[in-house]
């Protein structure tokens, strides 16, 4: 409860901050709209020439694209700004302050900063997914629940991965490049993970689970994810979260502040 209240408070302070820069806010919204409409356009053009892409028809593809923007939007809403700030804290030694608070330092650091405008990306993603869903129309309550669970698991997977990656900052301090590689991998998630060749599919499903984080929710909502698959996803996400949190703690032990 306390952490939820804190989260709401973090969100509110960041919202206030973004509202101070109205022009910037407007430009970012335009950018989001342009990016999403062009990628929806690309899918529509593609489906002018074909009706099915490795088992994914237009509706399913739109759902997938919607899920992609939901997951990416979540990443850019809170994870990207927070993790960037986290690495800055490590570099400047201001992480000290978070460590000295009577609350989980991991929470205080990794869910602290928001780019509120990215809610727009998530909203548009939801719209695209719903439009796609209209063409499939198999959504029962079961699929809806499975979708919600799979989406949350997707968020958790992305979080765990970023946490594990950013932990390297404790040893190497500057790891911006590593994070950049990650964001470009995430881009691959806008297509179904099963259209990629074997080695890439394995990478996108395990080492860099962006494919899973996007593809599985899309499959869930279109009724193509069975209960077993969902269970594996849930267990996998929880395991990823626990392992990455442990890794973070190991990293924390090597942190000594910018000057000792």
């Amino acid at each position, binding site marked *: 409860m306390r952490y939820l209240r804190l989260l709401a408070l973090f969100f509110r*302070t960041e919202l*206030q901050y973004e509202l101070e820069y109205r022009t910037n806010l407007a430009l970012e919204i335009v950018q989001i709209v342009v990016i999403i409409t062009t990628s929806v356009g690309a899918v529509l053009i593609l489906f002018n020439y074909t009706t099915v892409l490795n088992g994914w028809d237009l509706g399913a593809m739109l759902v997938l694209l919607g899920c992609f923007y939901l997951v990416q939007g979540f990443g850019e809403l809170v994870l990207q700004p927070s993790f960037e700030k986290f690495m800055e804290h490590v570099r*400047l*030694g201001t992480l*000290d302050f978070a460590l000295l*608070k*009577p609350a989980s330092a991991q929470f205080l650091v990794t869910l602290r900063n928001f780019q509120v405008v990215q809610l727009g990306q998530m909203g548009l993603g939801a719209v695209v997914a719903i439009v796609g869903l209209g063409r499939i129309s198999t959504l029962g309550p079961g699929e809806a629940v499975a979708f919600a669970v799979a989406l949350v698991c997707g968020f958790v997977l992305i979080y765990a991965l970023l946490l594990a990656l950013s932990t390297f900052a404790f040893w190497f301090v500057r790891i911006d490049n590593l994070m950049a590689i990650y964001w470009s991998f995430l881009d691959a998630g806008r297509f179904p993970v099963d259209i990629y060749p074997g080695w890439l599919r394995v990478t996108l499903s395990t080492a860099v689970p962006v494919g899973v984080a996007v593809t599985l929710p899309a499959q869930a909502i279109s009724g193509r994810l069975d209960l077993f698959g969902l269970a594996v996803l849930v267990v996998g996400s929880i395991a990823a979260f626990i392992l990455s949190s442990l890794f973070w703690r190991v990293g924390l032990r090597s942190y000594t502040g910018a000057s000792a």
Partner: protein
Amino acid sequence: MGEPIIDVRDLRKTFRVTERQEGLAATLRSFVRRQRRDVNAVAGITFRIEAGEVVGFLGPNGAGKTTTLKVLSGLLYPTAGEAHVLGFVPWRRENAYLQQMTLLMGNRTQLVWDIPAADSFRVLQEIYGVPDESFRRTVGELTELLELQDLVHKPVRNLSLGERMKVEFAAGLIQSPRVAFLDEPTIGLDVSMQSRIRRFVAEYNRRTGATILLTSHYMDDVVALCRRVIVIHHGHLLYDGPLADLAERMAPYKIITATLRDGAAATIDLAAYGTVTGRDEGRVTLKVDRQGAPERAARLVNELGENLADISVEDPPIEEVIDRVFSEERVGTAT
């Protein structure tokens, strides 16, 4: 006296640092194989601090002051030794401990740059779980003591360095801590802001009875705030005792300042009375042996007679004493 608030026993902290020579070749070599060396930042120090004390923690750069503060606040694990603060082992970082302490660093900020401090205060209130009523009272008091008023409603980046430090102080004290570690709280501030921060720390200590351990390069801070000082150098404790006795223990000499009447300065040689360290028109400063100081002063008065306009015998300035301590590394403890 009850249990000490801060109890440190034979505390040690060794860092492993990477060494590298200058130049590209050395950099490349170091990239492949790092040369490492152990540095004893804190080499076995012991002290206790009672409730409500304000203690100055002195030492040159790299003496181990900040390392000690970091261990005591819970940021660093010591290599060996024990420490208890408020009965807690700091580096376990139990919430009950963190709730009651604060670490303020003059060169780092915990405030969010782009939003007004008042918003950061609200976040801190929530993190520390301070009830609304006491939050309002604390912020009200801090606002009055630090003269914050409208400062807290401006984005932090628009504040001057001094204003930011005042707001930083308020942020660090939202939870009304019982122990405060202040690391160079007045660094970079102008003289009048320094003295305001000092007055605030003294008043805060008086009002709340909080125990304060402070490091500073400005001796004025220490003179104004601390009756007791702990001096460390190269990680060793050199002195722990009243500030007033520091000069007596550490500097075996006194300063006699004799002011001579017009014209006399040119003809009288004072070198026979002590080492002449300064001469400014009629004013001559002499460094004399501590024990012999009263006798020298009496001789000056007798022998110069009419030619002497004024005379004073003082301890050397505290900066000079400290400087001497650090350059000579004399060991002594006044407890």
